[in-house]
């Protein structure tokens, strides 16, 4: 539990790591559209090649990026089999009792699995190459239009950045409480679902108390230093985009454009 699972930021100096987080989020959305649009062998191959190229340039190890796919392989297998065996379409290959294996079902199952798996890998590429605080700053920029409907964007960004900083602290806290409960006889490793669930209840209450105590201390410290919230923060100039950022965005747009052509040819 003390180790962050797949998707955790992996520090690095690669060109992908050095890109502006705003550009990475825009690029992620463009590539996600390309993934969702893929519907043919050429389309899948094109997106896989693009993701493999990004992975190679980012210099990330393969395992953390592919981890969600490996972790969810049973889920993918079930989705594939459900589509392949129960799809009521043309081109039946084999039939027995309620099962009906069809070519169209196999194609649909494969399509669903590939779409979800590629979206997962793409999301992981974003989070593995971008520090959480950089993501928060980028999010703040994208939230700026909400100021028009009087959403306190600065306060929302402050809450989100405090939340991100609290995650490792609370993980540590949960780990400490877990070890204390194990020492008192809690059976987290039990194979019985009810025993496992019951052992997690004494874990949750102390974690909440500890978390709220930290929130109380932080709020007190902030108020003692004169922070009252709901005030306009001084305008900070966002960093200018550099040539590599523009190039990266253009490359993502090109990947999407090729995918668009593949769909319509």
């Amino acid at each position, binding site marked *: 539990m003390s180790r962050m699972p797949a998707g955790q930021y992996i520090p690095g100096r690669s060109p992908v790591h050095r890109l502006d987080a705003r550009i990475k989020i825009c690029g992620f959305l463009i590539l996600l559209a390309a993934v969702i649009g893929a519907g043919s062998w050429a389309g899948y191959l094109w997106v896989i090649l693009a993701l493999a190229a990004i992975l190679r340039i980012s210099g990330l190890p393969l395992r953390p990026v592919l981890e969600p796919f490996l972790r969810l392989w049973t889920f993918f297998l079930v989705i594939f089999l459900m589509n392949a065996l129960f799809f009521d379409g043309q081109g039946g290959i084999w039939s027995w009792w309620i099962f009906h294996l069809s070519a169209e079902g196999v194609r649909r199952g494969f399509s669903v699995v590939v779409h979800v798996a590629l979206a997962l890998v793409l999301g992981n590429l974003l989070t593995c190459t971008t520090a959480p605080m950089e993501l928060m700053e980028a999010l703040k920029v994208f939230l700026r239009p909400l100021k028009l409907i009087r959403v306190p964007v600065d306060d929302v960004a402050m809450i989100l950045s405090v939340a991100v900083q609290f995650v490792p602290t609370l993980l540590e806290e949960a780990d400490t409480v877990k070890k204390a409960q194990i020492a008192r006889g809690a059976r987290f490793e039990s194979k019985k679902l009810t025993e496992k669930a019951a052992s997690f*209840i004494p874990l949750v209450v102390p974690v909440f108390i500890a978390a709220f105590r930290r929130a109380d201390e932080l709020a007190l410290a902030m108020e003692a230093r004169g922070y009252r919230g709901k005030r306009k923060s001084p305008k900070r100039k966002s960093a200018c985009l550099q040539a590599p950022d523009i190039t990266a965005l253009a490359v993502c747009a090109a990947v999407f454009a090729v995918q668009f052509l593949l769909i319509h040819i």
Partner: protein
Amino acid sequence: MTKMSYVKRSMITAVCIALCVVLPMAFHSIQNAGSIFSPMHIPVLLCGLICGWPFGLLCGIAGPVLSSLLTSMPAMAYLPPMAVELAVYGLAAGIMMQAVHTKKIYADLYLSLIAAMLAGRLVAGAAKALIFAPGSYSMAAWAGSYFVTCWPAIVIQLALIPTICFALEKARLIPARYRN
């Protein structure tokens, strides 16, 4: 519970959002814990009950988004319906807690909690049927996924959330709703 400063409510919201990331990781060792125990619902409901609807709404939207970004749980494909469900939980819990005053803390908490849990499930089901899976979502699938599969979550939430509220009140981390 309405006498807290804006800063304190902001910080409580921040820890509740962080708990939306931490609790699913703590429950992760149990097979299918996400769908059975719904650990992310607890901090969102609590945030709405304690801090009010704007903070509950923020926690409901930001919690799953942040968890998905940091830990890939929930997967991006499940994120939009989940964010809608949790946002309604936080919003409804806050509104109900503001509206209901029975002079009994137990009654206030349970009325708000049950109303929020029902509202979140109804809106999430409607959103799935109309937006996220139009045409392929049935009443049976809704009842199955929101009431049958996750019955342990409903029991845990109904038992835990008032207990946590009392524990926080006793530890003087949140102000008492009614003076004895």
